[in-house]
């Protein structure tokens, strides 16, 4: 029990922080109220430090993922906190400042906004700790439910409400689908414990093939979770939601649910394993295999469609946020390729052939780089007729930004090149790992499609580079928001993107941590060990939740 508390320490810290933020954010005094953000940041910092020192959890299907995933959540979360400054209540607080209104806690959103943000991150951390389908389901819902509210209240505009509703309804549909998948998976294996499922599936595969009900459950779960990672066929909401929500919230939506979805997918796929022969039966422990055929085909189709649809539609956009939304879909497709490739079967092969490690590293890099691009959007604004400032979103607004607002312009240029994966920026190394792991798994066709898609992506990322860097500014320079921390978040992420050029050891450490996090014990190795002692265990009850 106490060991479980150690594992969950970051979540507990975040939860306590959330409670404090909820109270502090409603305080009548402005000085105390504005502490909500620093307190949230402090909580994340403590959670991150605790996460790094978390031991491996042998009960988990991805035993080593916790330190990396939680530290990544806390780290990117810190950048997001900086970016979220001033998202809600800006005009209200300004009116209170001017003395036009009296402060009334009922009319403010600050407390719940930051609290929801922390709740969502707590959910993400819980996803990484999940050992059970029930736990995983609750964690995924905890990630999503707050984000629906955050998208809705992020601006006072009607478009945010529309975005929130679209997000919520498709989210509910996705949740229903993966819940049904979980139910079938439970039905097909008789347990909700992920390791139990892994052993049951390995046993079924060894004796003639995986139960079709379990198989249907896995596929439904994957399709349902594809909502969270913004993959085809559940990608429709992405562009609308990212455009409708305020830019800082969009940056968060591009990272938090996506990471949660990928970690959940990793957990479920790890229960199936990557060592099946094309016929569906397990290979010997050292054989190089792949996912069972039907899952493989489903995922490969999703991956190819996702990156192609994302990239092609991104070409047509005029809105920066929509463009980034479609590019986020494309990045999901790239990562799916490495997810299909799976971890290396050979021991100690290193990050270069560890697909799960590659996905985890890519998520970190994508999260950081993406925050840079959204930070630029979040920093630019133009006063509207109704007195409220609205953020700029047209590609044309970036014109000549490197001259008019050099810092923001260069952040955009560097981060767009990073997302494009131009060497030697951080994005290149992340994409390089996707390439190596997929080639290691023999997925040459997927790699070629991935390469071609990266080339298509160059079309629209170049727009994000040329407009600020090469064009002459037109008209008035866009105004910037008064929130310095947003600019700081952008600069920080651009600096991180550039970090890969200099051998500092930080990128190296992140890669190694991702590699460790993505290492799993292949199911059939344990299954084989178990079958040896199966006689002794015959009377033991099926593992259930209260074990």
């Amino acid at each position, binding site marked *: 029990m106490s060991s479980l508390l150690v594992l969950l320490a970051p979540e507990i810290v975040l939860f306590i922080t959330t409670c404090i933020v909820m109270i502090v954010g409603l305080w009548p005094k402005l000085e105390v109220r504005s502490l909500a953000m620093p307190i949230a940041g402090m909580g994340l910092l403590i959670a991150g430090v605790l996460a790094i020192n978390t031991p491996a959890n042998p009960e988990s299907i991805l035993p080593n993922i916790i330190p990396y995933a939680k530290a990544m959540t806390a780290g990117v979360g810190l950048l997001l906190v900086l970016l979220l400054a001033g998202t809600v209540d800006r005009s209200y607080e300004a009116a209170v400042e001017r003395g036009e209104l009296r402060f009334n806690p009922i009319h403010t959103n600050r407390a719940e906004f930051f609290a929801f943000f922390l709740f969502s991150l707590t959910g993400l951390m819980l996803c990484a700790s999940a050992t059970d389908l029930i736990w995983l389901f609750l964690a995924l819902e905890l990630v999503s439910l707050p984000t629906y509210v955050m998208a809705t209240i992020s601006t006072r505009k009607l478009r945010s409400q529309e975005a929130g509703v679209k997000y919520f309804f498709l989210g509910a549909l996705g949740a229903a689908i993966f819940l049904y998948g979980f139910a079938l998976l439970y039905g097909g294996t008789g347990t909700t414990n992920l390791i139990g499922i892994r052993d049951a599936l390995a046993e079924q595969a060894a004796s003639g093939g995986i139960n079709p009900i379990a198989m249907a459950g896995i596929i439904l779960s994957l399709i349902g979770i594809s909502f969270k990672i913004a993959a085809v066929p559940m990608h429709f909401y992405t562009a609308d939601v990212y455009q409708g929500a305020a830019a800082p919230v969009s940056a968060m939506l591009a990272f938090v649910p996506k990471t949660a979805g990928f970690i959940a997918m990793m957990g479920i796929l790890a229960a199936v394993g990557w060592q099946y022969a094309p016929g569906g039966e397990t290979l010997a422990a050292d054989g190089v295999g792949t996912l069972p055929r039907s899952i493989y085909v489903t995922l490969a189709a999703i991956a190819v469609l996702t990156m192609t649809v994302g990239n092609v539609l991104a070409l047509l956009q005029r809105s920066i946020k929509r463009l980034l939304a479609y590019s986020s879909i494309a990045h999901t497709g790239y990562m799916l390729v490495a997810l299909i490739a799976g971890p290396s079967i*050979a021991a100690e092969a*290193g990050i270069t052939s560890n697909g799960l490690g590659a996905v985890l590293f890519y998520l970190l890099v994508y999260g950081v780089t993406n925050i840079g691009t959204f930070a630029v959007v979040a920093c630019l604004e133009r006063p509207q007729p109704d007195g409220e400032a609205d953020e700029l979103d047209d590609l044309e607004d970036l014109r000549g930004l490197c001259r008019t607002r050099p810092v923001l312009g260069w952040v955009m240029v560097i981060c767009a090149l990073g997302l494009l994966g131009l060497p030697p920026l951080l994005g*290149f*190394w992340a994409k390089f790992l996707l390439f190596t792991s997929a*080639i290691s798994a023999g997925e040459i066709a997927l790699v070629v499609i991935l390469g071609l898609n990266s080339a298509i992506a160059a079309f629209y990322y170049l727009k994000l580079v040329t407009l600020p*860097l090469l064009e002459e500014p037109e008209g008035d320079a866009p105004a910037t928001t008064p929130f310095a921390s947003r600019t700081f978040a952008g600069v920080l992420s651009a600096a991180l993107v550039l970090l890969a050029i200099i051998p500092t050891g930080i990128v190296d450490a992140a890669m190694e941590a991702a590699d460790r996090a993505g290492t799993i014990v292949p199911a059939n190795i344990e299954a084989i060990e178990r079958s040896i002692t199966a006689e002794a265990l015959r009377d033991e009850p099926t593992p259930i939740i209260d074990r």
Partner: protein
Amino acid sequence: MSESILHVLILLPIATAAFIVARPAGEAKTVALWGSLISLVLGVVAAFQFDWSNAGAMQPEVSLVPWLPALGLSISVGADGVSMMLVLLTLLLGPICVAASFSSIKHRVKTYYAWLTVLQAAMVGVFVARDILLFYVCFEFTLIPMFVLISIYGSSNRKAAATKFFLYTFTGSILALAGLIYVIWFNATRMPVEAFAGAGEWSFQIDTLRQAAVRMSPTEQGWVFAAMLLGFAVKVPLFPVHTWLPLAHTEAPTAGSVILAGVLLKLGTYGLYRFAIPFTPIAAVDFAPFIGLLAVIGIVFAGLICWVQDDVKKLVAYSSVSHLGFCVLGLFALNTMGQSGSVMYMINHGLSTGALFLLIGMVYERYHTRSMRELGGLAAKMPVWSFFMVFFVMASAGLPGLNGFISEFMCLMGTFQASDTLAGSSIGATPGVLGPVFAILAGTGVVIGAMYLLMMTGKMVWGPLREPKGHDHHNHSELADDLNAREIAVLTPLAVLCLVLGLFPTPVLKGIEAPVNDTVRWVQEHGGLRLYRDPAPARVTELSPAGVVTPELAAPAAGGER
């Protein structure tokens, strides 16, 4: 030669660029010029330190600076004779490009010179890289400076040109990356550790990977070769994927065109020479007729297009496509004659075509047109310019005594010999798959080349003076009618080198002979007897140079280190 001098050659331009950005705009060109001159001097020092008697070996022997240990990646530099020559070419064109831009670049000066110097760092990086990722990083990174140079400082249609340039090259090279990674993976997982040093681990060293790559099956080699070919052929550019080049050249500023023609195109041929051919010799031999065909089509087709050009810069751009066809043809002759000729061609083309672009830029600065309908008979008004023009056109067309001749001749001769059809004749034959047909077809390209170049000279230089309507000298008072001292100083070193290389090519040929010989022997050994259409052992012993082995040994698995 110490590795630190190579590191300095990469880092110094970056430092120069940082310095340019830090200093006021007025000093930018001076700083850039000094920076590039220091680089050139360092390059010459490196060339003197270089042990030319051992030019076939990478120098220094070992060089490792850890970069990303998690990937097993370190920065590893070194040069053999071929790399050294190309580095020198790059460094020579550096100050020339800077000096050539003094009067033409008026706005956003700091940005211009900063990117120009950064570009130089990336190009040097490509040539001295000994690990595949440093090569690839630099290869890709050249895109950004060139993209910026074209799209800010180019002429009217510059943005489309820059975008096309970027997308073509980026698409090609990302597929090349997939091929290279396949080789890396193959070495890491399919090679037994005891096979050779570095086998069985994630190594990025070119030497190691070359050993592993030749052990791939012919099918694998075919795919990897195709991937690399896509990447490098776009850069060369080879016939069907050449369409970005004329556009990029026409729109680029003068110095951009010079760099583009002088060095950037050579990254493609260098990639073919360093990676595609030695990594996958079996596939290189199999594909050689196909690539030879593309090269010949490029030579003739681009030559014919040149003939109908009105824009003189576009004409020279298409002539680059044609010339690089010879270069590729020489490479795929797969014999010492052809490949040395090809490497020579890389250098010579950089000198003479670079100079032609400079000359055209100088006229453009004065008349703001490049149309041959509007310009003509400039000999009357610009005698010095006309002298240089005629000189470099002759060099480019391959007049004996100037540099173009020797390399063009060697490429054609190598191609001619590269088959066993002439075995026993006085011309001699080497193992190869191209042969006289290719050489004769390409030879028509030489004639076409001479014709369009002379036609251009005839229109531009001789005849009655034609100037564009409304041309007014007083608008360009800062430039003299004819070339000024700076412009002459820019052109003179190129002219001298063209003459020297034309008359005494031996030192350069000697320098590149050893590494080229190594490559050729390597390809013959590992591409094996497939070089012969008729693999009768008797003929092998009869014709083979020392390196060729018998069929049993030529099997990829058994073909070990030399």
